[in-house]
């Protein structure tokens, strides 16, 4: 768990309009780590991700990315710090073709995947490249959403429910991809309902409940924590 601190969140509160969703989240992610945030539906995991990139309403507390305070930065400045975000709702653009969608996010650093590499990984996308983005099937859109940010060279990837709606084969492929990314030194924050997907991939886990982190443990402590997870997640 060495390596420098990539992300440090301290006492993060976030609101959607009037409703107060995050109540003081604290978490740290080191460079090169894969960290998974677990929790029930509505625990606030997505909100945490969105708060990092600046997509919630009001937020307070501290978000440091590579040591730089980002709590007051607008989203495009956060992205420039090397953050790639794959939203839960996929966010595929209807007015852009699949390929335009893929090429949309501007590269923020070197070292992103090449288009050929991506098409290799997701042959469906190549086939449907000219189709309007939202005409793709649910799963294809999911692939596109992930592929899109792999291209940009962002070193901190925030991935929200990326295995959702994908066929088992593809889910396996994604798992491999994340291993490869980790090997290349990328940092990944994974939010997953699909515990079996996240469990073997993550170095560390945070468990969230009602907008707070209630538990933190490492891969090696996973076995010991299954009972607790059972209680929190019904796994």
């Amino acid at each position, binding site marked *: 768990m060495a390596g420098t601190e990539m992300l440090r969140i301290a006492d993060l509160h976030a609101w959607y309009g009037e409703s107060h969703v995050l109540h003081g989240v604290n978490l740290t992610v080191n460079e090169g780590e894969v960290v998974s945030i677990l929790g029930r539906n509505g625990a606030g995991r997505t909100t945490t991700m969105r708060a990092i990139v600046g997509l919630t309403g009001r937020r307070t507390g501290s978000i440091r990315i590579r040591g730089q305070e980002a709590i007051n930065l607008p989203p495009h400045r956060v992205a420039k710090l090397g953050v790639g975000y794959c939203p*839960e*709702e*996929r966010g595929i653009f*209807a007015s852009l073709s699949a390929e335009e969608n893929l090429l949309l996010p501007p590269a923020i650093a070197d070292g992103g995947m090449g288009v050929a590499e991506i098409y290799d990984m997701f042959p469906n996308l190549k086939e449907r490249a000219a189709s309007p983005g*939202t*005409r*793709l*099937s*649910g799963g294809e*859109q999911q692939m596109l959403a992930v592929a899109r940010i792999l291209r940009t060279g962002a070193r901190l990837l925030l991935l929200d429910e990326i295995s959702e709606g994908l066929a088992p084969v593809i889910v396996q492929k994604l798992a491999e991809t994340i291993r490869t990314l980790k090997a290349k030194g990328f940092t990944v924050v994974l939010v997953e309902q699909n515990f079996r997907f996240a469990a073997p991939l993550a170095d560390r886990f945070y468990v969230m409940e009602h907008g707070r982190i209630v538990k933190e443990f490492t891969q090696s402590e996973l076995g010991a924590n299954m009972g607790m997870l059972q209680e929190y997640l019904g796994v």
Partner: protein
Amino acid sequence: MSTPSTSVAGDLELGAPQAPAQASTGIGKAARYTYLALLVLALLAPAIGLYPVFVMKLLCFALFACAFNLLLGFTGLLSFGHAAFFGFSAYVTGWLVKQQGWTPELGLAAGAAAGAVLGLVFGLVAIRRQGIYFAMITLALSQMVFFLCLQAPFTGGEDGLQGVERGKLFGLLPLGDDRVMYYLVLAIFVGCFLGILRVVTSPFGQVLKMIRENEPRAISLGYEVDRYKLLAFVLSASLAGLAGSLKTLVMKFATLTDVHWSMSGEVILMSLLGGVGTFFGPVVGAGVVISLQDMLADKVGEWVTVIIGVIFVVCVLAFRKGIVGELLAWRERRNTKK
């Protein structure tokens, strides 16, 4: 989470976007007392020195705005062509009463019917379109009606159809007397207002609500949504027509102003200002706009347009729920705080 199959709804679906004042759909006790108080006030209006012609005009526009709101607020369709129904029926009634010697009650009925027929025609053309397209196609159709009224011999072109006599209601009540006319207008307005209340809460109103909330869902439950929208459109058009007819009798003329697209803009302003999707909002909105026009007429002269423009802007920026909508929201906030 969205998939191609579920984005059928059309992202531009208009109306009640922030679900303004949902709470108002059921008529609460407080609202009932307020209505009662207002009714008493309205009944006494001529006696307490309110100027009857002004109040009548106001009620006509209030009815027009309520009719419009039935569509925007309770069906989620923004029509940019409601002036067509209002103005066309105004001419129809004017012409029948003045040139054909019809009695006022028949003239009014014919006006409402003309509105309904025109609404049916508009509806058949426009109803399958959504959002901005719906707005634009109704605008286009109403422009055609405008040019028809400009050209048709019986409207008197830009001079207007002037000198319509009110006649005697059922051959008995002399409507020429402003006070008699006033009570007729009030009765019709109250009737229609209650009618709209009923429509919105009726089984039919429930279906409209479903359509507004989630149209593909309503379809999948087996509702032929276009037919429901069409009926709502026809009802709204017919009431708008009735409002126009009534206005002809009150003012004794019908002119092109009534069919011009800016009248469609005005009725939107009224609804918006008062509160889209609330029952009483359009009435308040009409009251404010009409009083304002009346006041502005003597006081500010050339600044009218600017002032109306400023109201639009302020309304959109600061009072999106409208006067009544904001009041209801405020009350709700206060209640939840307790």
